[in-house]
């Protein structure tokens, strides 16, 4: 009984679950379109596609069976042929056919029989305009005949030509004859001025040279390619060295004072040398940037002061991100300074550039302070009160970082609430924490 009950229950549950299953698929199939599987439909985002998709169910169907097609064996002529050849072929009953009579229209492929209109000259014209020491009349006639037959396919013509002439020679003769005839026949020179051969006559020597050069490039062996590349790289290196020599000269002049400082510091024991060494690369990198900009400016024979300033600003902005650059510009505005000086003299531009650099330094320092702060907080784990010195600093920071430092304020609030490092905006503190633990 229990078993039955259990079974009954089971049975009940089964049918119910089965029902569920049964009810669910029909519902689903109502939602999804038939023809494509559910998964594929989900790929499109569960929405019907904008373009009508191919109805897959249609693909499996058999093509529509029309009524029986009858065919007729009928004669036809081809207008493209010059002889009067009558041939026969099957014509389906789809095309309108009156018993035995040909379907209307020409042989459908006749229209593809295109040919080039080759000019025809008379003997008189030949005597007057076309004589050439290199060509006999027979040869010229033969050439034109072949041109007609082979639709100006000169490679074939050259092959078929009785005496051995190169493709360029044949082309040259054909085009010069064509040109001469056109010029002779034209009523005025203006009529044919637009004809391609008149505008750009065939240039044999140029063509031969071009083909020769092309074949040379194509037939270059791999070794030659490598050698050419090497030569180009060498040339580039020499050019860069020339620029570099200018740059090092410039940076030598610019960093001359620093070099002196370095020399004196060498006398002092080791520790002081390292900070100066550390400092020097930091100094050199920005001055190298500027030095190369200055060098490139000197290469111009003339330039505008505003252009020079733009280039220098770009060079100093090169290491900064877009956000930083925006912050610099905001700071300039807040300080009441024009983003582009109104009176860009040499002194003004120099001051402007220095100001920008100083603002960048300031922003970097702000970041460093924030960083240090976050470091400090990750150690503290939310308990503030114990740290004696920091409250003072805390009050300092919002003050000085008011210039575009709203984020810092928010950071403070978050930390006070949860004691966890700030989330989305600052990835650095989190990383710091992980590495420390």
């Amino acid at each position, binding site marked *: 009984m229990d078993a039955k009950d259990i079974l009954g229950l089971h049975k009940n549950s089964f049918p119910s679950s089965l029902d569920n299953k049964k009810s669910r698929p029909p519902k689903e199939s109502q939602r999804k379109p038939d023809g494509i599987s559910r998964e594929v439909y989900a790929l499109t985002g569960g929405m019907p596609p904008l373009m009508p998709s191919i109805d897959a169910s249609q693909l499996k169907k058999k093509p529509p069976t029309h009524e029986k097609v009858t065919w007729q064996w009928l004669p036809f002529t081809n207008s493209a042929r010059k002889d009067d050849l009558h041939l026969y072929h099957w014509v389906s009953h789809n095309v309108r056919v009156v018993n035995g009579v040909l379907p209307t229209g020409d042989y459908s492929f006749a229209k593809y029989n295109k040919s080039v209109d080759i000019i025809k000259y008379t003997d008189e014209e030949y005597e007057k305009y076309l004589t050439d020491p290199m060509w006999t009349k027979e040869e010229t006639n033969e050439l034109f005949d072949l041109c007609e037959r082979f639709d100006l396919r000169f490679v074939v013509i050259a092959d078929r030509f009785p005496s051995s002439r190169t493709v360029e020679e044949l082309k040259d003769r054909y085009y010069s004859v064509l040109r001469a005839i056109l010029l002779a026949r034209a009523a005025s020179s203006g009529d044919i001025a637009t004809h391609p051969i008149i505008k750009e006559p065939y240039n044999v020597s140029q063509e031969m040279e071009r083909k020769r050069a092309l074949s040379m490039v194509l037939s270059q062996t791999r070794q030659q390619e490598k050698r050419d590349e090497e030569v180009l790289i060498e040339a580039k290196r020499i050019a860069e060295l020339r620029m*570099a020599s200018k740059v090092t000269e410039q940076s030598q002049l610019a960093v001359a004072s620093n070099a002196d400082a370095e020399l004196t510091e060498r006398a002092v024991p080791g520790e002081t040398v390292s900070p100066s060494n550390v400092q020097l690369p930091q100094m050199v990198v920005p001055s190298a940037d500027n030095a190369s900009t200055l060098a490139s400016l000197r290469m111009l024979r003339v330039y505008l*002061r505003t252009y020079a300033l733009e280039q220098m600003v770009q060079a100093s902005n090169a290491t900064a991100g877009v956000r930083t650059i925006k912050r610099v510009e905001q700071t300039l505005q807040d300080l009441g300074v024009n983003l582009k000086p109104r009176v860009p003299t040499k002194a003004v531009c120099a001051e402007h550039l*220095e*100001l920008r650099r*100083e603002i960048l330094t300031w922003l970097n320092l702000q970041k460093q302070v924030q960083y240090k702060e976050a470091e400090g907080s990750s150690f503290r784990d939310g308990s503030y009160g114990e740290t004696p010195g920091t409250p003072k600093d805390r009050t*300092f920071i919002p003050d000085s970082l008011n210039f575009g430092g709203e984020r810092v304020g928010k950071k403070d609030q978050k930390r006070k609430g949860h004691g966890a490092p700030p989330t989305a905006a600052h990835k650095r503190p989190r990383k710091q924490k992980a590495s420390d633990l």
Partner: protein
Amino acid sequence: MSQSQTLPLKRHQDENPRDDDSSDIKPSRLKISLPSEDSDKKILIKRVKDVEICVPIVYGTIAFFLGRKASESQSHKWTVYVRGASNEDLSAVVKRVVFQLHPSFNNPTRVVESPPFEISECGWGEFEIAITLFFHSDACEKQLDLYHHLKLYPEDESGPQNTKRPVVIESYNEVVFPEPSEAFLARVQNHPAVVVPRLPDGLNLPSPVPVEPMNDKERGDTKDHPLNHWFLNFSEADELLKLAAARQQVQAHIVKLRRQLTLMEGLPQSKQPSG
């Protein structure tokens, strides 16, 4: 490899360009360069290194509303010009100026061969004017392009326009010649329109060869120009003051932050968790 730019050859340096460490730190004053255009003539132009001369210029437009005389197609009379910043004669440096006007004007390319370098026209529309400066051959073979937007209508559209008050838009800029040729420098070193820094000692310049004067008038300066009381004043003093003040502020902030950093550096170490 062919270089389209000039090939600088330093007098005192070796042929081998890699020899940088051994080269003398004192750069040679004079540099010989081959101009790109005269490759067949092979004329050597002696250029003076480390002497940068500049020509301060002002360019812009002055537009008058024509008032009663205005018509649909000609509501304003305007002048576009390039002048020396202190109204000195630019023709010692500038050979000619080409103003490219809107294509709706007759002959939109206006060439001015002598000072004052300006074009006056009547019209109704605002557009960008391209101004190209061409210099004398001893100064520079290349041209310099400037762009200026012609403004006819004043910023504040309060009330009808005054025929007596023009809309003046001027821009200050400086044309810099980083390494002038000896001939150019000799010619302009005492010219009021050109700013020449203190020349190094021992510099021997050739005697100046004057360029053919293109002016039919005697004076090319704009000191007595009919519109000169509308010219704006550009003094670097104000800007320099502002910049200096801004720099001071920023430097103060930097000092404060540096101090903070050193203070903060002491603290975390004492708070380091054990284990």
